[in-house]
């Protein structure tokens, strides 16, 4: 057969085109589907709860993935900014994957446990109230919509999460009780953004926040904090900037950029404890304050050492001392 005759036979030509596009498809896409190494599974990474599943679906519905990624690349600056790099195992339960392609906003793969729920309630409802220069659009209506749980059991079953309808109902009831209780640590801010009629229900925002708090949680639990990282250079040491007025001024700038959104203007308190006081929740020595900022504390204080470095943390601590004096 003369090769030129291919250009005279449209059906044969179409079949030839299918064969030609199939080679790369088979090698790079189809065969990897059957290699366990493509999507390894580990018991360390758990499926989503019923509420987290619904929260994830709201994230999908609202197209959050258009502006937020969920993959931390193994690059030095990226690990310093967001946290540990993403592992394949973390995505094993994800249908669809939500890695995203654009960071108009920050990566969220390590958002879980970074801030208290209250932070997310306020931020989602009005981001500019917390960060004036942010261009995150406000989604106040999520707190005003009751979560539709009519399909939850079917969703969980379809996704193969391994628990039954009764367990779904139990999880939903438990969650509802938790967020509606006056003892819920973020109760005050939640009730500020949630209409009175829905405070006893699960709202779409409740579910979304639950989902965000799950991101990266299993990896953090699986990896013990690197020994000494939090207190590096702080054991028993004194702040080199004590009484240094210039350093206090720099510390003020650092404080305004990184701390005000939670600890309030002049450290008057907010989601985070009041800092304009000598009675600090986790200890008031130089070493204690350094450790709190550098390594974070349970309940929503993130670790700032990778982002700020030692010098700037000491300057921030110097400014906190200044606030203590003002607060007296």
């Amino acid at each position, binding site marked *: 057969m003369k090769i030129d005759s291919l*250009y005279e036979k449209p059906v044969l030509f*179409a079949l030839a085109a299918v064969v030609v596009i199939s080679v790369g498809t088979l090698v790079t896409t189809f065969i990897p589907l059957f290699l366990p190494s493509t999507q390894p599974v580990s018991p360390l990474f758990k499926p989503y709860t019923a509420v987290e599943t619904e929260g994830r679906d709201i994230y999908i519905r609202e197209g959050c993935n*258009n502006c937020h990624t969920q993959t931390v690349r193994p690059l030095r*600056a990226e690990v310093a900014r967001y946290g540990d790099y993403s592992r394949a195992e973390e995505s094993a339960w994800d249908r669809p994957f939500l890695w995203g392609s654009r960071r108009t906003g920050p990566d969220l793969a390590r958002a879980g446990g970074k801030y208290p729920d209250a932070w997310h309630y306020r931020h989602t409802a009005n981001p500019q109230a917390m960060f004036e220069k*942010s261009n*995150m659009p406000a989604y106040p209506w999520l707190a005003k919509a009751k979560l539709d749980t009519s399909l939850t059991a079917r969703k969980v079953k379809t996704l193969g999460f391994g628990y039954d309808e009764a367990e779904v109902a139990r999880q939903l009831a438990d969650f509802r009780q938790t967020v509606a209780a006056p003892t819920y640590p973020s109760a005050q801010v939640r009730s500020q953004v949630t209409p009175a009629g829905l405070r006893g229900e699960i709202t779409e925002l409740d579910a979304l926040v639950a989902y965000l708090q799950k991101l990266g949680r299993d990896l953090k639990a699986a990896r013990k904090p690197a020994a000494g990282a939090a207190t590096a250079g702080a054991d028993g040491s004194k702040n080199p900037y004590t009484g240094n007025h210039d350093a206090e001024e720099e510390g003020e700038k650092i404080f305004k950029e990184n701390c005000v959104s939670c600890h309030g203007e002049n450290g008057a308190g907010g989601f985070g404890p009041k800092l304009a006081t000598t009675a600090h929740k986790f200890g008031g020595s130089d070493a204690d304050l350094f450790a709190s900022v550098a390594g974070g504390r349970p309940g929503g204080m993130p670790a700032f050492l990778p982002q700020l470095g030692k010098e700037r943390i000491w300057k921030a601590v110097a400014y906190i001392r200044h606030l203590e004096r003002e607060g007296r």
Partner: protein
Amino acid sequence: MGNGARSDSIVRGFALSSVFWLLVGLVLGLWLAAEMVYPSLNLAPWLAYGRLRVVHTNGLVYGFTIAGIFACSYYILEKLTRTPLAFPGLAKAQLWMFNIAIALAALSLFAGWNTSKEYAELEWPLDIVVVVLWVMFAVNVMGTLVKRREKQMYVSLWFLIACVVTVAVVYILNNLAIPVSLSKSYSAYAGVNDANVQWWFGHNAVASVFTFPILAMFYYFLPKSTGLPIYSHRLSIIAFWSLVFGYLWTGAHHLMLTPVPEWIQTVALAFSLFLIAPSWASVINGFYTMNGNWDQMKSNYLVKFFILGITFYGLQTIQGPTQAIRVLSAHLHYTEYIPGHVHMGTMGWVTMVITASMYFMMTKISGREIHSVKLANVHFWLILVGQLLFTVTLWIAGIVQGAMWKATNPDGSLAYTFLDSVAAMYPYWTVRLLGGLLYFAGIAVFAYNLYMTSRLKARAV
């Protein structure tokens, strides 16, 4: 008139539908560009940013580009086969169904029916409609080719066949999902596999929608509007097969440094660099076709659209592969550089070629000269300047943004917070909005000019 007269109304219908969805998609684009600077434009759930962005991309890919492809394909098909469309009734039904489907698709995305997989966001009921529409198209293309009276198939028809089969394969495989309700389904693939399949689709949607059919138009309308034969038939053959072969390997360059297996990333990188050769074969074919006749850039209002279009295609196919290189991906991925890259392809290459092709077809169908050459020139300069302002600004913005994300102090801590990098973007986002406004003005001039041309009655034979 010739054999094609019967489907002139179908070509005209798809062309005008295409322009309509182009205008809609661009208005949404402007809204989004403004919202980047003024987030308070997030007015209501149905108009929220995350939903609007999806309507913008889908509206322009499926509404504008696909309708443009249908219009040009049917026109080219009849001319190159010297045969009327095999099933004109089917094409007419396809035109109506297409517009209803795009309207429903937009509504469903506004309502939040969204799978989240980029450019494959439509939920399963609409996926089925898209597949049915594509089968209707394929039946007409293959049917007309089988019945054709011209023995040899010209290169435009090869690209058309490649478009038909590739869209079918990648669209169906990436959209496989398990429904839980009418408006909700879960991907058939999990995690890393889902990512890998998605970007295999994502990149080959670019190949089979923004490349193959646009090259088909280029190879047909450039010679037609200049009266010059394409420079090298042999080069077209080599370019065609290596392009179609190479594209399918490159999807994972969208997933550099993610948990996707490293060998898949590296294979994608290698083939991305390889693709420069067949891409530039078409660029060279286009430029050499003009050899000795470059004065037509001035004397023939259509030529500059095609030549600037293929130039942006050439730049695009250099820029794309370089972005696949790991160290550059590390700096540029996730930044504004990427939307800058995408918009050079869509606003420069795709729209230049489709709008010029529509001028050509509409003058042939109406049997008269274009309504206004002067307005066509205004259209050209506005979309050229608007696009350059838009894309170059975003490239610079992306480089700045990537640098701010990476910058560290001597002690290894980060020099900028994420918010610092957002604040630094506002001037760039404002200029991007201005570029978009200029571009939109150019497209509005085009729409007016094309509509006026289409209204001119056919000359008496």
